[in-house]
């Protein structure tokens, strides 16, 4: 299984801070599309993604047990 963490306003959109699903085998882009659809999230595709606290590309494959964090870049200042 995989733990998915939602940061900042993604947490509000997802309705909770984390969910646990089986994402092994999917790449990051596929996982984003899947989660966005399942949870009606509109802002996930522009989020930065980290696998086990390391920056991940869209093509990186999720392994069993990985923790995935979604962090939305913001522009305010």
């Amino acid at each position, binding site marked *: 299984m995989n733990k998915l963490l939602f940061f*900042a*306003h993604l947490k509000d959109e997802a309705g909770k801070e984390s969910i646990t699903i089986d994402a092994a085998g999917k790449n990051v882009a596929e996982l984003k599309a899947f989660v966005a659809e399942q949870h009606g999230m509109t802002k996930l595709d522009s989020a*930065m993604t980290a696998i086990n606290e*390391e920056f991940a*590309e869209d093509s990186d494959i999720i392994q069993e047990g990985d923790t995935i964090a979604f962090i939305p*870049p*913001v*522009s*305010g200042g």
Partner: protein
Amino acid sequence: MTERYSRQTLFPPIGQAGQEKIGMKHVLMIGAGALGSGNAEVMVRAGVGKLTIVDRDYIEESNLQRQQLYTEEDVYEKLPKAAAAEKRLRAINSNVTIRAVIADATPDLLDELVQDVDLILDSTDNFETRMAINDISQKHHIPWIYGACVGSFGMSLTIIPGKTPCLHCLLKKIPIQGMTCDTGGIIAPAVQMVIAHQAAEALKILVEDWDAVRTTFTSFDLWRNQYTNIKITKAKDEGCLSCGEARTYPFLQNENLMKTTVLCGRDTVQVRPPTKQNLDLSHLSKQMQLLGYPMKGNPYLLSVDMESQRIVIFNDGRALIHGTKDLAQAKAIYNRLLG
């Protein structure tokens, strides 16, 4: 003035040698809003040699809740932020050379200002300018520190050309979020937290303590009690057009800039983002509702009445700003609403 910096020279990683280095450095600050006023104050109190501060905006009442250099009097006088910042910073430390530039931080202006600069501190409110800063940083080999915040959430990243990935490696395209301080709100502690990270990194760079420089992307949410550091070393992309081998500095090129045009014979400016967007207008309209502006919409556009302007936003990201002929003002309004 050794007594002035005594608590800073007592800190072993700075010391007397570090203080002398700080006093010889020139920092370029882009933006004099919340992050800009706070970062500028730390740099000036720390005794940086020279600070250049660039901002196109003037002070409004809604700035006072978080923009620490400004007072009620500055609002009544409608002072430009860069000018008001300069005035206060001089009263804080008359030893620092301060230059206020009241202007839009376009790529051309950045290219001109950056000549003898040791560090660029990002305190702007939009990704278009940040991506231009990122290209300028690579082109002139000058470190820069990204910082941003919305709500209780914020982030920071230190970018050292030739050493770390750049912002373009991490963000392949400019995100248009529809989530800025003007739509999602902002609390001052989130601003302070970003400043803490940016200013600490700035001091490390000014005293040339390269080993101490943070190599992770930091983000946090003070209300939700979240904090994380992401390793980014492997994000460095040799094909990156900003920092890779075949670099073109795309965000310094005209065709990739936001286009602003005064519409002929009308008191209206058209703003067009560099690439077509697919905005979620229903989400945006909810945010505008929270702001309390009168608003109408249909599936193709959203029309918002602000004080003396009416803004019509299309779902491809294009907008018409009615009630002005000022290109910089129109772009500022656009960035405030759409980031």
